[in-house]
């Protein structure tokens, strides 16, 4: 059954285009999507995800399942970096450990929307307010990461390099992708509340076009991810194991919490995917600026070179069967 799910996941356009990108690199095709075109799709997806999430949030309100779910998601984005930090410190210094830990506490929006597409292709229902959880898991993970550096690296940094609270908040809240996602969420919310006609007029752009744009972007992500993979070899086997096992561990954690929250299977999968995925947009950007001591190739090749393709290709169906096993279907 698991294998069947994997196959069903793999035969959807987004995952097929992701493969097309990976294979292009493997076979050394000269297919490339030159900068800044991928940025266009990345900005578009964040804007559209946020806007649609805001509309859904306005519909659902902040009543029962919403607040506990979003609250738990935020807690997870605080907890996961701490767990990861402890594990990573076994082998890496404070700076690298904190940077990687923050990335795994945060989320990957593209993994999330691939999971949504998977649910849709399986005709499993889920709620739009999960996007609020997605949007609110980025900043806390960055804050925890930077705090870890501040606390654990006092001796290793000259006074002039002490992490200031201003920097921490700036990097965590005003990072371009966090800001666009949260801002679009707010705009979606306000539009749904005060200008329903605007929601309808945005629909062709943020709604209809979304699936195709996702496929195009995943083609590029396949190319990018495959080019990051060699970097992982250099990073060593410890990080390779970490990049596969930690998502699994976090997903299991996520499914149990989803069970405690009595989420349906669709929302439970999305919750697990949020826990399991790692950030390669907001967190690396923040870390590159404020923790230059950490090697960028470590936190990028783990999150983007391994965890991301793992989640997209087999993680999502595995987490789905975890959900099916752990959460008894009520229907």
């Amino acid at each position, binding site marked *: 059954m698991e294998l069947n799910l994997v196959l069903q996941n793999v035969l959807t356009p987004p995952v097929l285009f992701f493969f097309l990108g990976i294979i292009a690199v493997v076979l050394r095709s000269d297919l490339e999507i030159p900068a800044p075109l991928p940025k266009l799709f990345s900005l578009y997806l964040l804007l559209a995800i946020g806007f649609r999430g805001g509309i859904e949030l306005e519909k659902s309100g902040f009543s029962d399942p919403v607040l506990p779910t979003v609250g738990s998601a935020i807690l997870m984005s605080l907890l996961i970096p701490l767990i990861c930090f402890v594990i990573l410190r076994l082998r890496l210094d404070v700076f690298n450990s904190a940077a990687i830990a923050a990335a795994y506490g945060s989320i990957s929006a593209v993994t999330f929307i691939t999971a949504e597409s998977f649910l849709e292709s399986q005709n499993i229902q889920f709620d739009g307010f999960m996007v609020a959880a997605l949007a609110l898991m980025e900043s806390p993970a960055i804050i925890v990461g930077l705090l870890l550096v501040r606390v654990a690296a006092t001796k290793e940094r000259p006074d002039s390099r002490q992490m200031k609270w201003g920097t921490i908040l700036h990097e965590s809240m005003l990072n371009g992708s966090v800001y666009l996602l949260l801002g679009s969420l707010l705009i979606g919310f306000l539009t749904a509340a005060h200008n329903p006609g605007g929601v309808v007029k945005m629909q062709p752009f943020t709604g209809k076009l979304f699936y195709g744009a996702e496929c195009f972007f995943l083609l590029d992500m396949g190319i990018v991810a495959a080019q990051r993979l060699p970097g992982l070899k250099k990073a060593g086997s410890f990080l390779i194991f970490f990049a596969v096992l930690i998502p699994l561990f976090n997903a299991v954690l996520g499914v149990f919490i989803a069970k405690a929250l009595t989420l349906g299977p669709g929302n439970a999968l999305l919750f697990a995917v949020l826990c399991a995925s790692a950030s390669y947009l907001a967190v690396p950007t923040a870390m590159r600026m404020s923790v*230059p001591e950490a090697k960028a190739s470590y936190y990028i090749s783990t999150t983007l070179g391994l965890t991301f393709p793992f989640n997209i290709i087999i993680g999502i169906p595995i987490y789905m069967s975890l959900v099916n096993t752990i959460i008894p279907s009520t229907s």
Partner: protein
Amino acid sequence: MKRLDLIFSERELDAILKALEKAGVPGYTVMKHATGRGPDTIVSEDMEFSGLGANAHVIVFCDEEIIKKIKENVTSILNYYGGVAYVSEAIQL
């Protein structure tokens, strides 16, 4: 006149430009989207979408005294974050 070439991550552009302005440069030119390799990191174009950015190549034509003023601030930034800086001779056309 001197010509100064600075190459470093785009993320540090604001800090470097501030240091140049403080030293009183008469002007500067910035070319973004440069890629490359230093002693241990490879910077490639395909990561630009992530906001990590690529490298910036900054060119400054200025007098020798200003080069001296630039030196301290700029090298401290480059030493911490990475990047290279070279000076050569140039004569106004």
